[in-house]
């Protein structure tokens, strides 16, 4: 009956092959765990709801950010710099300068507007058409419309503008400064807020889901204690809890996706109105399969890790010395 001769010790007990036992145990434990959830519908639903709501928040935030950036990409057009060049630069020189500027990392594209084109456009748009016909010469210079890279922050935009203004060929750089600065200041705040929100939500899902599973398992501490006392290995004791955690995670994750989809459905109308404004047929960005997978993955993962820790913690407590 020596402990180190385990196979020998277990001999009186006729067992089937180890793999089929392992698989069989998992199948029966999985269905037993699910059965337990179904038998306590209120308690299970509460826990699944907690997980779902907790996961829905960051998922919703993520979708919002994605939709916002899909839209805000098109805002950039409002942020072009108009670089009015010196009046004595000719068209070729202006084009050469444009190509040069276009090579900057913080610039997406440069469009050249010749002074003639500019005047035509101005006449058409300003309502001064007839009056300007009286002009003896074109007072407008060649202009480079510089579109900065969307990666720019408020700071780097200011820098870019300064550098453009300091070019010897530049007369004046015009831009709707207020809008640009506001836009970037707000973008900065939003991205910082999203970062803080993400950290808070990340902490929330770990703390909330972990704690919920911990409390649920603590309620079943008797099961841990008794099965340990009659010789179950840690793996055996943990198994039903891991399956419970798995089911909680899976069902919670699915419900989270459902909740967010519902919320998105409610946002459908205003978002598509906005999309229309850009004439971009751009639809509302929804979950793609990868995201659905990762939400469920996170849910199941947290369920498993949470129950693993909680069960192990309880087992430690009742271990001799």
């Amino acid at each position, binding site marked *: *009956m*020596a*402990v*180190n001769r*385990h196979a020998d*010790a*277990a001999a*009186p*007990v*006729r*067992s*089937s092959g*180890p793999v089929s*036992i392992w698989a069989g*145990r998992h199948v029966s434990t999985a269905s037993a765990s699910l059965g*337990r959830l179904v038998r306590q519908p209120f308690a299970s639903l509460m826990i699944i709801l907690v997980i779902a709501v907790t996961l829905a928040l960051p998922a919703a935030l993520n979708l919002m950010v994605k939709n916002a950036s899909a839209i805000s990409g098109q805002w950039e057009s409002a942020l072009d710099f108009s670089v009015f060049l010196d009046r004595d630069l000719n068209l070729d020189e202006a084009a050469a300068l444009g190509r040069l500027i276009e090579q900057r990392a913080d610039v997406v594209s440069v469009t050249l507007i010749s002074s003639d084109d500019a005047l035509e456009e101005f006449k058409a748009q300003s309502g001064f058409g007839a009056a300007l016909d009286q002009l003896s010469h074109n007072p407008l210079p060649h202009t480079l419309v510089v579109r900065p890279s969307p990666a720019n922050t408020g700071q780097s935009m200011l820098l870019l503008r300064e550098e453009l203004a300091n070019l010897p060929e530049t007369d004046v750089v015009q831009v709707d400064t207020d809008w640009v600065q506001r836009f970037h200041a707000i973008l900065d705040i939003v991205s910082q807020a999203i970062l803080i929100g993400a950290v808070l939500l990340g902490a929330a899902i770990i703390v909330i889901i972990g704690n919920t599973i911990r409390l649920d398992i603590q309620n*079943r501490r*008797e*099961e841990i*204690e*008794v*099965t*340990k*006392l*009659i*010789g*179950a*290995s*840690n793996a*055996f004791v943990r198994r039903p809890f891991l399956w419970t955690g798995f089911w909680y995670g899976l069902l919670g994750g699915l419900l989270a996706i459902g909740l967010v989809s519902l919320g998105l459905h409610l946002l459908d109308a205003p978002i598509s109105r906005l999309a229309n404004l850009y004439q971009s047929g751009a639809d509302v960005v929804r979950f793609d399969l990868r995201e659905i997978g990762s939400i469920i993955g996170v849910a199941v993962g947290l369920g498993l890790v949470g129950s693993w820790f909680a069960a192990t913690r309880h087992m430690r407590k009742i*271990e*001799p*010395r």
Partner: protein
Amino acid sequence: MIRLENVTKRFPGGQEALSGLDLAVEKGEMVFVTGHSGAGKSTLLKLIALIDRPTGGQVIVDGQNTRRVKRRRIPAYRRQIGMVFQDHKLLYDRSVADNVALPLVIAGVGTREASRRVRAALEQVGLLQKEKRNPETLSAGEQQRVGIARAIATRPKLLIADEPTGNLDPDLSLEVMRVFRRFNEFGVTLLIASHDIALIDKLGCRRIHLEDGRLQNDSAAEEEVLVVRPSTEDRWR
């Protein structure tokens, strides 16, 4: 089978439950542990089942020093011992049959064989007709018998029972002791803590009396030790 050498158990509060206990139980013996409330009977049984460890001395079970059983080997160690707990330790979220089957499931016994053994064990304690019930709906004595059935279902070589008849009437107590006796005849070593001195006397087994954590009296020293030699062919299995 069991050898205790100068075993001391002192609890964190300073309470000394066992003091310098020396004891030897041979293979195939059936031994009763008596002593007043708080004498250290349960503590002794727990040390043997490795539910707790001694603060001093050695506990050697089947040649294996419990001190040297590492944490991850404890489950395998415990699986070799059948244990009846003083407070039953049943699980109230499953049926009586599932409770009794639990150690068999842990040992990886096939479903067919396990259910056969569960029914045999419940039969022996007279609870076969209640196998589908939840232990919560059983009387205290019935719960105690479920605990006994669970301990014998695995057919261990060593069976440890802590006050297995505390909630049973005299007839049933005798019945349970007869079950234990039959086990003993098949070579199982038994160590039973009990207060029922009348019953113990009736059985005429060796009796170890504890007093405040010390060995006060060992009937083996007086009478002939009652050892049922395990038969060469293990009939019981």
